[in-house]
């Protein structure tokens, strides 16, 4: 499934959750700052997407993916993403300005940078993973 196709559904789900018309939801908009999604909206959005695609979805799926890629190397220490972790994140989350993925970034701060595109990627990643298993 392609990102564009997922994007249509993600925009609709965001509209249902926070009321922003789907036509005005751009791929590059950040979920928290620009679309005003809060943590409970995010749970709501993830629940809807889980039902829609019959997958299990977690916002830290990005973290799981990075950990898998890093093998024995740590992804984070005390909540701060390691330099190795940042390299993996920069590679995967190309939609986020690399300048914002700077040393010292915490796991919590990373989520705050997520865009609609990031969410679509998480959905795609989970669909692909579940189709493999």
């Amino acid at each position, binding site marked *: 499934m392609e990102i564009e196709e997922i994007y249509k559904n993600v925009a609709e789900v965001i509209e249902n959750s926070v009321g922003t018309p789907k036509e005005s939801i751009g791929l590059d908009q950040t979920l928290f700052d620009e679309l005003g999604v809060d943590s*409970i909206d995010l*749970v*709501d959005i993830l*629940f*809807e997407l889980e*039902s829609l695609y019959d997958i299990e979805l977690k916002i830290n799926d990005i973290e799981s993916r990075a950990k898998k890629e890093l093998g024995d190397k740590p992804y984070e220490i005390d909540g701060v993403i390691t330099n190795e972790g940042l390299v993996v994140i920069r590679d995967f989350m190309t939609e986020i300005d690399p300048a914002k993925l700077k040393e010292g970034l915490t796991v919590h701060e990373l989520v705050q940078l997520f865009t609609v595109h990031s969410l679509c990627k998480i959905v795609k990643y989970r669909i692909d993973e579940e189709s493999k298993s």
Partner: protein
Amino acid sequence: MNLGLNNKIVVLTGATGGIGQQICLEFIQEGAHVVCLFRNEKKVEDLIDRLKVSKADLNSVSFKKTNLLHKNNIREVVSEIVKEKGRIDVLVNCAGNVVELPFAMMSEEQIDQMYQVNLKTMMLLTQAILKPMFSQKSGSIVNVSSIAALRGGRGITAYSSMKAGIDSFTRTLALEVGRKNIRVNAVRPGGIKTKMSEPLESRAEKYIPERIILSRFGTPEEVSKGVLFLASDATASYITGTCLNIDGGYLV
């Protein structure tokens, strides 16, 4: 007063206990369909007998054996209910247990068990049921706490702590999910005439007049009325995050 509970889908834990049986019966009488999550088949038979005696419509109740400590089992059961009934309007968390023992004598296993039965099961089930409720953008959750949450007694330190946890869980969850049109409330029953309270009742008889304003123990009916009131959008649509004392004035 019409409680507007006709055709509502209610999930109930602890339906085989004294208070739970009455809650089950009254939801059925109000036209709701009650899905009872149970552990012990024998106790379910007792509940069915009780419902038959009260001439309740047995088509309005169903039973699902559930291990409320097993997250995956809970998810499966919740998803079965949603598949079969299409929605979940009300969750009543009534399962609980009390073991009276001086805290200094409690084993780690007994403390764990107290936490699991009284608080963890409630959290896991609520978490699973929030999913369909988020989707519906509506839902009502009623937790059965206890006056012990506010005023403990000797031998129930762990139990009181868990019940205080339920109160806090109720208030904080209400804060989290209110914007999604989900209400979360609790009732705090006092001394209620049930099998669970029999030992307490016999010991407390002499203190009742001075400690309980209404000078008597309550009945399961008096608790279930409070539960249905809070569950109903017709009567409690603007009530969330509250814990209703049903204690004959004990906490005054």
